[in-house]
């Protein structure tokens, strides 16, 4: 029986177990769960880092895709896994926005997971077809004001970062652009390039490539200031101060994972993100490395949760 008197012993035993496992960790294969489709940036970046971790930790680190159940099943698997440091999930900038939209998810992001580190980040990009009459971001707002409710932007599902940026711009600029949901960037791009939809709000990963090929023209990007990989593209916040967001990828484990394990992983990932080949490949995907401490990562998630809740409440966005 667990009596209050015994609690200190149990706690001591747990701490010892934790310390022991941190010394011998990793004991076996480490699995990184990716909860989005194969070939997406979490998968690609996950596999890049898994290969380097395998070399550095001496045990295989593998990526497993579990995109079943819109990613909830895979995340839940890690939440419920043994907190011994052998199961990780890749969270994305979209994870807090989904939590903000669906508070009734079977887990709480901020309390049921132990953050390890963020990996990389990229801004969202507002762009148009090269044939579009819209000249720049200020022109976009002027046209939207002149034609209330007429302009459309392509986005991902309800409550995605695409949607939240669109609505945040709507709120701050006092305009009323209509978001059109798409499943993924390619069909959205087809409709934007043919002029059916006026503008595209999409990830830097997708947009910068199309912009480099001349298939899209950038109006603005959502980094807090100049974005290192696209210094010519003005920031949204140049016109609408305070409107900025970065999407990111990050590792998390089951809560109660021993801190020494998390710290070791954090150190290794930091070192990996310093490597030139990793930096180059991230840059090709429009990403910059963004290591952080576990607390910084948790702080980022909490800040974003609060920010997204504000937009969701202001615009009455509901998952129903």
């Amino acid at each position, binding site marked *: 029986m667990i009596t209050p008197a015994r609690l200190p012993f149990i706690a001591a035993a747990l701490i010892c177990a934790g310390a022991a496992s941190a010394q011998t960790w990793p004991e076996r294969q480490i699995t990184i769960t990716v909860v989005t*489709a*194969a*070939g*997406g940036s979490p*998968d*690609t970046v996950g*596999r*890049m880092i898994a*290969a380097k971790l395998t070399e550095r930790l001496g045990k295989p680190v593998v990526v*497993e*895709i*579990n*995109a*079943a*159940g*819109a*990613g*909830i*099943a*895979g995340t*839940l698997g890690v939440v419920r896994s043994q907190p011994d440091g052998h199961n990780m999930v890749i969270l994305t900038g979209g994870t807090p926005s989904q939590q903000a*939209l*669906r508070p009734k998810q*079977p887990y709480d992001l901020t309390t049921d997971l132990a953050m390890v580190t963020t990996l990389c980040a990229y801004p969202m990009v507002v762009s148009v077809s090269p044939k579009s009459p819209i000249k720049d971001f200020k022109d976009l707002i002027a046209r939207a004001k002149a034609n209330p*409710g007429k302009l*459309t932007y392509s986005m991902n*599902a*309800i*409550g995605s970062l695409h949607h939240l940026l669109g609505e945040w711009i709507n709120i701050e600029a006092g305009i009323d652009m*209509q978001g*059109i*949901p*798409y*499943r993924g960037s*390619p*069909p959205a*791009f*087809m*409709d934007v*390039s*043919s002029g*059916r*939809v006026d503008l595209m709000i999409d990830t830097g990963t997708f947009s910068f*490539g*199309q912009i*480099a*090929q*001349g*298939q899209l023209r950038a109006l603005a990007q959502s980094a807090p200031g100049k974005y290192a990989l696209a210094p010519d593209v003005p920031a949204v916040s140049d016109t609408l101060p305070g409107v900025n967001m970065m999407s990111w990828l990050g590792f998390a484990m089951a809560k109660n994972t021993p801190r020494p394990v998390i710290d070791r992983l954090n150190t290794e990932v930091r070192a990996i993100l310093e490597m030139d080949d990793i930096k180059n*490949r991230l840059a*090709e*995907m429009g990403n910059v490395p963004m290591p952080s401490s576990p607390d910084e990562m948790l702080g980022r998630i909490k800040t974003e949760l609060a920010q997204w809740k504000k937009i969701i409440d202001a615009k009455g966005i*509901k*998952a*129903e």
Partner: protein
Amino acid sequence: MSMLSDLALGLSVALTPANLLFCLIGALLGTLIGVLPGVGPVATIAMLLPITYTLSPTGALIMLSGIYYGAQYGGSTTAILVNIPGETSSVVTCLDGHPMARQGRAGPALAIAAIGSFFAGCVATLVIVLVSGPLVALAQAFGPAEYFALMVLGLVLTIVLARGSPLKAVAMILTGLLLSLVGTDVHTGAERLTFGLPLLQGGLDFVPLAMGVFGLSEIVSNLEKGEGAKGEMIAAHITGLMPTWEDIKASAPAILRGTALGSALGVLPGASSMIASFASYTLEKKLAADPSRFGKGAIEGVAGPESANNAGAQVSFIPMLTLGIPSNSVMALMIGAMMIQGIQPGPMIIAKQPELFWGLIASMWIGNAMLVIINLPLIGIWVRLLNIPYGLLFPAILLLCAIGVYSMNNEPGEVLLTAGAGVFGYFLLKLRCEPAPLLLGFVLGAMMEENLRRAMLLSRGDPMIFFSNPLSAVLLGASVLLILITVFPSVKSGREKLVED
């Protein structure tokens, strides 16, 4: 001529020993995973992506493409032999391919599938060379309204697919549409028919459903008939491995028509190669002198759709190579593979990397030739598989299905889902309801709904958007016409019955 010199450049790249080897590895690997139910090209290519980093960009892409079209070949083998469609596009192959196998004609069915695919592959390669420009324009002409109209036409075509009662076919399509609603709605974020289960939030997946309603239910009914108990073979007598002249004469026009359909529809993103395959089936059934043979082992019903889906699969490289836009998840992975190599897919690729572009295209032709050479001698081995006592064969099929489904998402729940779909499929079989319209309704329904709502959002609620633009108006008009053609004969015969009474 610049085109000839382009092709020559491509052949010189594709025919280097290293690239030939990559092509062969890809084709072999593709055939293998195609034959294994559930293990698809998406999972395989995703797993191989990190390895491609160490290869030359051209070699990597040649190998990955080989896996893709190799899997199309292998997939039809499983569809014909054991009635399990591993990919959306092989659903239609099951309809007549498997009855052929049951009649002891698995050899001709496999051979004609391989020959049809080879011919379609060759033509599609030429199509890519000659008309990728105009085809891209066609793809861009398709907006939400046009897609919606195309899906409606697709669903109407599905009714024609069915053997037996059209009423049951309609019921099956509607059930398929209902199943496609399961999951989180993209437009509102609402959860529909998920019963609070996290597993269902992303919707039902095609593979567990298809495997269950086609494959597992087939196994159950075989066992019920006592084929398992007695250790009988699926095909008691095998009548020759190669198609006869009659077979080839019957198939040739179907192959030509299927190739044309596949090449035209393949360029559209989404389930285009599947729509092509059953559009081809419908066409063959309509054109046939005796449509009642279909579903009972008509060789045209294998030849046409197999050519269509292979042509479609190959043509789907066009938007990927020329626009950097993937038309399906395999193409998305190809783009990933290019980006790993530091190549940005898009319009500049032909100018900047001609040896990669033309080398890849030439390799597709070589790869298709290799596949025929690999597959034709293998037919004897595949057919002999049917001679294994069913009591040994069916546990192996079940196991492979379970592994295949589990490997998609590493999610045990989806294996249970497959089992559930199997029970459901068994009931459908008992009720004499065809599962094919159900699956097509399932696949098309989701896209139809999404495009309908997107079109309505863009038109701000004005339904005229579907009729004001000519392309969607024509497609919808064709659907109405087809319904009338299908309904009127039965109305007439119904009236005749009334008169007789």
